[in-house]
């Protein structure tokens, strides 16, 4: 297992290096420059290019960037918060996005599993239909609409929670965004859990467990859930990455200074360093979470675990 993880980490690092290079090339291909501004003359633009070293060839810039990156320096922002260290920009905003995302994920997982399990246990009953209806709604309602509805009823009409994100009460004011953000993962996890669990419950091995006379609750805990969760965990990985890296829509509505919005703005503004940093963070999170999911997968699924030990 250790050897396996070590190998995976090495591959991940190599992947990240390649990704960084690709990002650099993509960035270079992006139309426009950070300094396209109606107020800027060509002479000023040239000055700015020279000032930020953008007049150097791509590879030189790339290796310089890599070198600085190892020192924790991700360059400065050219357009969003001029001359700001990108590392601190990303750090601050990522923190908030991770906080919202983690809340949403926790909520989505708990609710999704509960709904999915309830539906599967009461297969073909009204509970199942209700849970299915909730999932369909959850998947089909855009998060924008959902967020506005929550804002209007919970925060504005009932005044239970603040409408906007507030630095002084981060937890309370992040509840609504987290709820809005969790709607779609809840629905996805619920749907997936339900169908997986129904499959498991119809499987031969559950029939065998039934034929052993094992009590239902024991059977569900020690056989059904374990077998259901293995595939569910694989879909949760990408959902988690998606949530942790911030939703630009939710951030916009609730006024959250998160990384999702930052990335969109950075792309629009051609803010090279910020875009690269955001995309890179995205990739790092993706790789880390997927690595984690893989390891977790091995822990709960003996078939994978054995294969890895043989590796």
């Amino acid at each position, binding site marked *: 297992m250790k050897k396996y993880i070590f190998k995976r980490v090495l591959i991940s690092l190599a992947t990240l290096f390649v990704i960084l290079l690709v990002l650099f090339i993509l960035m270079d291909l992006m139309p426009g420059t950070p300094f396209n501004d109606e107020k800027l003359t060509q002479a000023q633009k040239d000055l700015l290019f020279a000032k930020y070293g953008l007049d150097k060839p791509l590879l030189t810039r790339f290796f310089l960037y890599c070198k600085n990156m190892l020192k924790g320096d991700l360059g400065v922002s050219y357009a969003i918060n001029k001359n700001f260290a990108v590392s601190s920009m990303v750090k601050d905003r990522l923190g908030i996005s991770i906080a919202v995302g983690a809340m949403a994920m926790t909520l989505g997982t708990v609710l999704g599993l509960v709904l999915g399990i309830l539906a599967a246990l009461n297969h073909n009953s009204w509970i199942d239909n209700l849970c299915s209806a909730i999932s369909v709604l959850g998947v089909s309602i855009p998060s924008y609409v959902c967020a506005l509805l929550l804002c209007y009823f919970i925060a504005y009409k009932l005044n239970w929670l603040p*409408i906007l994100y507030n630095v002084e009460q981060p937890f309370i004011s992040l509840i609504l965004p987290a709820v809005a953000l969790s709607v779609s993962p809840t629905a996805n996890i619920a749907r997936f859990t339900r169908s997986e669990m129904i499959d498991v419950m119809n499987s031969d091995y559950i029939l065998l467990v039934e034929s052993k006379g094992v009590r239902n609750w024991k059977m569900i805990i020690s056989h059904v859930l374990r077998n259901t969760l293995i595939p569910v965990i694989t879909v949760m990985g990408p959902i988690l990455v998606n949530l942790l890296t911030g939703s630009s829509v939710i951030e916009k509505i609730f006024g959250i200074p998160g990384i999702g919005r*930052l990335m969109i703005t950075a792309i629009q503004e051609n803010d090279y360093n910020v875009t690269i940093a955001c995309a890179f963070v995205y990739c790092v999170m993706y790789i880390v979470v997927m690595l984690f999911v893989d390891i977790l997968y091995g822990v709960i699924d003996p078939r994978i675990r054995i294969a890895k030990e043989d590796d």
Partner: protein
Amino acid sequence: MKKLVALLLVLLLLFGLTSCGKKEDTPSGGGEGGGEVVEDAIIFQNENVRKAIGYAIDRVSLAKSLNDGSVAAEGIIPFKLASNPDTGVDFRDDQGAIVAYDAAKAQEYYEKACEELGKKKLTINLLYGTNEGDSVIKAAEQIAYYLEEAGFEVNLVSKQKKERLQLMDNGEYDVALTRWGPDYGDPQTYMDLYISYNTSNNAGRYNSSKYDKLVEDAEATTNPSERWDLFKQAEKVLVEEDFGIIPVFQAGGAMIIRPTISGIQFHSAAVDNYRHIVGKDDVTLITNTDIVYLDYQYATDGTSFIAETLFTSGLTELDADGNWQLDLAESYEMNDDGTEYTFKIRDDADWVDVNGNVVAPVTAQDFVDAWDRIQSEELASDYSWWITDVLLLKDYTAVDEKTLKVTLEKPNGIFMSCLAFPSAFPINKAFIDEKGDQYATTADTILSCGPYILDSWTPGYSYELVRNGKYWFDSDYTAAGTAKKVVFRVLEDTQTALMEYEAGNIDTVILSGEQVTANKDVEGFVNRLQGYLFYLSININHYE
């Protein structure tokens, strides 16, 4: 290995998605690759093509349909930019409308142009920005409609702003919906743009020696009335005779301001002044963009400038009517021909840190340092030309600690009011040198010499300003009941902003789209006129 490839694909997809807004192009879009454009662009040398475009657009209906307080343009000079030095009449009223909507004429010119060019159909690729506000998208679609009514075939080419500007810089466009925000209250801020040798702004390479001469003469003369007349003539040549550019609309901005507060001064040709808000001690305002840069010598955007004029002061400031008043200057003397000014800086003008402690007095040398710094290549400031081209400074020296003497190239009617702009504000060089790279990155790496102190700045979230007790005018502020704390909350979404406003948590809301109509009768509704003038830039000669 498989995973690696998959990951790369995901990444590419990600980029494909995020940049598809940029790449989105009409089927025959002429934005990409100059070739096609170059061939087609020749038609814009034909005056009748440009006339057809000029007459085709029903600006009044268009502005009305934008529903955000925008008004139809009557020329390239916007309303409320400058007034006649003799009569005080607004330039626009003085000149009158020099554009017109006439569908029949538009068609007539179109047919004439077709005949002259020997073509059955003329095609226009209309370039516009997708992230420049809803009104731009709406306007572009309507312009396309009007042009089609006149007979043109129109392809809408939508790009992100940065790319639109890049294409215009490269001359890779036919007709583009673009804008110009005035830097100061004088027609020159617009007239300079279309001089044949201004390669930075005259994207379509409008080239008229007559126009060049009129503008040059206007800028050379020391007689304000003559200058005024020359600019009027120049505008007529550009817009009415040559159809060198096609003015469309002047931007508005609808918002709600809590009726209990007042004193926000909107200026269409200068930075809005938020220094005199009264009616509430603790005011929270909504801004849809964040401060870009705290260093006022480096900033270029309105949001930054508004904040910066709160915590920094210049020699003068603009009042509600747009007239200048002395600020950090206690008094000034001017020589007879208006080329030499001597300012006496207030004894009680001080630099104050984030905690409200006095760091140093504001000296004449601080202005000298500031004007040197903003022009330095090292800073590469976008506004370096403010000193030379707007203020027309030839020389400036600190006579003693509190006496500043400046010499102008020639008399300058807008000199005193342009000193109220952040690019003319003083700096504390010692502080900047001490902070180095960290200068102006946080609230505690910037000094204040204005009525407020920047208390905190959380990028992307909010910035808060508290009254500067050491500011020379502070006791008067207190007497007037000026807000003790002004908080700007960054919020892009207008729906939640409106709820937050109605819940009483914020004091202003910027409205958009349907909200404008829905809230027209709400108490505190304001439909302000902004300085931005949107016009069609026509690529007349740039392909050459």
